[in-house]
């Protein structure tokens, strides 16, 4: 898809970046000690910390990924919102206050409290790095996805810009600047998402979603004739016909432009319905709907084929309240564009065919996660495993856990978590409206679900688009900053200072932290470029699974089971990481990523948590019971 560059968006983005960098410079002068670099000196107000939590947590996955997923698969995307928020319950009720009580700069501190174990220091630091990098990938992918429409630059440039700015923010003032960037960004994201939702309600629903920016493309239907199994269309040359996954796709040519159509039966007669397609020839540039990209024939899509209000069919509704908006969609019909890949000779073809989906299906689980018709025990297990990972993952994310060290007291840690839950919960309710709004407003780019929310804003005006895009970019800056602080703490404090016993001292630890931030930034940039095109929320689901498996059994058992030993914790972390990564790297999704057939993957489980979390927990219990003598020695030494 071609996006026009918005000067206003560039100006707003540049103002924001300059402001953030200025803030970093300002705080840099105050950031001399390790305590101020890694934990903002424990001086952040709980209210600021609560919104900064929201800023940290409402990452590219939430704003870009969830809205995009809801726009393409309806309620299934909203499951992520529900799971992500539920995870805060674990954080608030079980983890917040003990983390504050036991740790100093990193979550390894809390795990290692009373043990002083090299094994914990090493494994917990490695786990922090792995989880942070898994979480960094989707943020950087999101940055690349955003920079194309915002600045008109290629994906990789967006990744490099974000990586560079973030390394600068972190390397100058560490947790203090990161906290204020997240506070500002979290606040702005919630305010302007509310504004966007108000626009959606005022706009209502319409069968022809023309918008300020452009007229909606009218999709063509051709009437072919079939004689002796030979298909012909008046005025067109039929050049190819393909049967793929139960669909009949037909390529017809007119004026030297070849386009793919979907052959379906309507009222007993064959019809050809226009599709979107991309073709990558063996030699030559990618074609969009049979033409070069610059011809702009690859349309934004997403419309309704039937709107029912109170039992009556209408062409448009006018402004709707939030609940009326949802119930109207549930009674109506939406046209989604479903992707199918195939080869046509040497050409690699991707088509998106129209699929009329009832609003009822759109508003309940099942379009993405196969838990209803056509479900197998494995697809149901995938669903349960994902919901478990989301529930357990939040309280084990290192960049979230370290935020408990930035406030003064346990009480403040608790209060800031509640502010975070309220702010994040409010935002997640809005994701359903933003996602569904994008699905029916004719704004979707079928090649990038991540762009749904910013493109929806564009339909309501370039000003709103510019602000929303700049905030989305800031969203990524904030989250990536937090992740890099967590990673740099793991390297400088846990690994170099404590595990290797280098005794860096205060200034040395800050210097090591800054160098580590730079190194992690480079890794994040490389991975962000490699994973281009994957839905960011899906990727974050994996980060949650790894975090939940590697960290949470260790945290919970350390807090609630007195027989937990240092070896039990260390082996549990190893079991969690290895099993979660092993399942992910051999999953059907990764098989597809490797260019292999998904069905040939060694197993069909995409979400590992249900196995890897359980395995880590069992490992901790077994190893702890087998090493009780260690705890006895520890007690005697005290």
């Amino acid at each position, binding site marked *: 898809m071609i996006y026009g560059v918005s000067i206003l968006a560039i100006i707003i983005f540049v103002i924001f970046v300059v402001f953030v960098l200025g803030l970093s410079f300002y705080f840099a002068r105050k950031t001399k000690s390790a*305590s101020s670099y890694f*934990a903002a*000196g*424990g*001086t952040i107000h709980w209210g600021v910390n609560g919104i900064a939590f929201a800023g940290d947590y409402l990452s590219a996955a939430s704003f870009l990924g969830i809205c995009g997923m809801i726009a393409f698969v309806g*309620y299934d995307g*909203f499951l992520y*919102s*529900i799971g992500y*928020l*539920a995870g*805060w*319950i*674990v954080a*608030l*009720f*079980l983890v917040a*206050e*003990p983390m*504050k*009580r*036991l*740790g*100093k*700069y990193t979550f390894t*501190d809390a795990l*290692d*409290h009373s043990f002083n174990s090299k094994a914990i220091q090493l494994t917990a630091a490695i786990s922090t790095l792995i989880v942070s990098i898994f979480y960094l990938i989707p943020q950087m992918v999101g940055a690349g996805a955003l920079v194309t429409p915002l600045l008109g630059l290629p994906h990789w440039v967006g990744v490099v810009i974000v990586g560079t700015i973030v390394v600068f923010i972190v390397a100058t003032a560490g947790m203090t600047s990161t906290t204020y960037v997240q506070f500002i960004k979290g606040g702005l994201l919630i305010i302007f998402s509310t504004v966007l939702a108000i626009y959606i309600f005022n706009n209502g629903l319409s069968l022809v979603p023309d918008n300020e920016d452009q007229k909606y493309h009218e999709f063509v239907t051709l009437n072919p004739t079939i004689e002796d199994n030979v298909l012909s269309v008046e005025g067109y040359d039929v050049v190819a016909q393909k049967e793929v996954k139960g669909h009949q796709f037909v390529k017809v040519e007119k004026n030297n432009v070849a386009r793919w159509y979907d052959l379906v039966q309507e009222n007993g007669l064959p019809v050809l319905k226009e599709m979107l397609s991309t073709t990558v020839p063996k030699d030559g540039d990618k074609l969009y709907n049979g033409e070069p990209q610059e011809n702009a024939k690859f349309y934004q899509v997403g419309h309704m084929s039937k709107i029912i209000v109170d039992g009556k069919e209408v062409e448009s509704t006018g402004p709707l309240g939030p609940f*009326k908006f*949802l*119930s109207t969609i*549930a009674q109506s019909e939406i046209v989604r564009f479903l992707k199918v890949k195939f080869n046509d000779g040497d050409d690699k073809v991707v088509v998106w065919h129209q699929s009329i989906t009832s609003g*009822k*299906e759109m*508003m*309940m*689980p*099942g379009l993405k996660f196969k*838990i*209803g018709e056509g479900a197998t025990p494995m697809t*149901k297990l995938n*669903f*349960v495993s994902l*919901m478990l990972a989301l*529930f357990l993952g939040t309280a084990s994310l290192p960049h979230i856990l370290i935020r408990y*060290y930035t406030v003064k*007291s*346990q009480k403040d840690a*608790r209060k800031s*978590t*509640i502010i975070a*839950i*309220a702010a994040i*919960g409010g935002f*997640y*309710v809005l994701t*359903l409206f933003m996602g569904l709004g994008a699905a029916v407003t004719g704004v979707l780019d079928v090649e990038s679900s991540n762009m749904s929310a910013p493109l929806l804003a564009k339909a309501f005006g370039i000003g709103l688009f510019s602000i929303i895009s700049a905030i989305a970019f800031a969203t990524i800056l904030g989250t990536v900053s937090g992740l890099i602080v967590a990673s740099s703490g793991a390297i400088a404090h846990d690994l170099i200072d*404590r595990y290797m016993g280098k*005794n860096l001292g205060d200034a040395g630890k800050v210097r090591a932290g800054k160098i580590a931030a730079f190194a992690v930034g480079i890794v994040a940039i490389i991975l962000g470029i490699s994973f281009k095109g994957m839905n960011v929320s899906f990727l974050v689901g994996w980060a949650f699974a790894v975090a939940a498996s590697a960290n949470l059994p260790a945290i919970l058992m350390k807090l*609630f089971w007195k027989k937990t030993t240092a070896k039990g914790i260390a082996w549990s972390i190893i079991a969690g990481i290895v099993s979660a990564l092993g399942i992910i790297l051999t999953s059907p999704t990764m098989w597809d990523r490797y260019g292999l057939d998904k069905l040939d993957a060694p197993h069909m489980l995409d979400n590992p948590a249900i196995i890897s979390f359980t395995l880590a927990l069992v490992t901790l219990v077994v190893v702890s019971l087998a090493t009780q003598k260690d705890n006895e020695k520890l007690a005697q030494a005290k």
Partner: protein
Amino acid sequence: MDHGPAVELGEDLAIKKKTKLGVILFFIYFIVYAGFVTIGVVDYKLMGKIVLGGQNLAVVYGFGLILFAILLGLFYNWKCTNYENLMNKEEES
């Protein structure tokens, strides 16, 4: 090397009570959340049933889980603050 809290924390005598309350509230929420997942797996069509104000069970339950988390959080904070005020004051006197 010391790796305790980054700031000096005062003694908190309400820890046991707060921990117990936290565990109870966690299990309450977990059961409600597990109920949502179970309906999805066992009888997903139930999610499409209209249950309140023209909204289906999926929307009502989903929004309900978000609202319930906020309300439980507020309740937890209120109870914990009460415990802290009461128990830490008793110790001071």
